[in-house]
């Protein structure tokens, strides 16, 4: 069966510091991968998605970036965090491209102080 991992689970970082969040998927090949941010426990905002290694699409212009160095690894980064980057970051995968079910990881709660 497929499993999705995210780490760290929680993170407190000062403004201006760098960020690296990691997501890995097990049990499937060539998944579509997604990064979402959820503010205040509400709707999810799509940040990035990837259909393959090195292929990243950005949905929202901001100081975050994403990379996919391996088939089942997806990384969210920032060079300098802002207070507004605080939130709950969720990684998700889907087995096929398109408007179909996505499966979410446990999330990382980021607090920028």
């Amino acid at each position, binding site marked *: 069966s497929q499993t999705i991992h995210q780490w760290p689970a929680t993170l407190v970082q000062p403004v201006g510091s760098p960020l690296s969040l990691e997501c890995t998927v097990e049990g499937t090949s060539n998944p579509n991968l997604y990064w979402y941010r959820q503010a205040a*426990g509400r*709707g*999810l905002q*799509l940040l990035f998605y990837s259909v393959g290694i090195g292929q990243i699409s950005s949905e929202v212009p901001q100081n975050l970036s994403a990379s996919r160095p391996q088939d089942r690894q997806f990384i969210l980064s920032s060079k300098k965090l802002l207070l507004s980057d605080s939130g709950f970051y969720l990684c998700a995968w889907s087995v096929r491209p*398109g*408007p179909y079910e996505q499966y*979410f*990881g*446990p999330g990382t709660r980021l607090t920028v102080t």
Partner: protein
Amino acid sequence: EDKVVQSPLSLVVHEGDTVTLNCSYEVTNFRSLLWYKQEKKAPTFLFMLTSSGIEKKSGRLSSILDKKELFSILNITATQTGDSAIYLCAFGNQGGKLIFGQGTELSVKP
């Protein structure tokens, strides 16, 4: 701009009650509508609907889509405290992305 609106935003019921959660959408290129349940952390997938009028059911949960009136409902019968969660709906567009509503926070009291 594509939009998904859920109502109510929050709801408090007692165990045994039946609840109906609403999701309406104003979107172009509709392809699917999905429901998720989110407790503490990761949203878990409940249903995906693509055709009008066909009910999907899983235990005490059921959902139906009306593509003419542009809405979907999620019903939960005989609610239990374990049903307490945020329920998210999302629409899938032709580009393959999911656009989420703001969620309904359901609290089931014993």
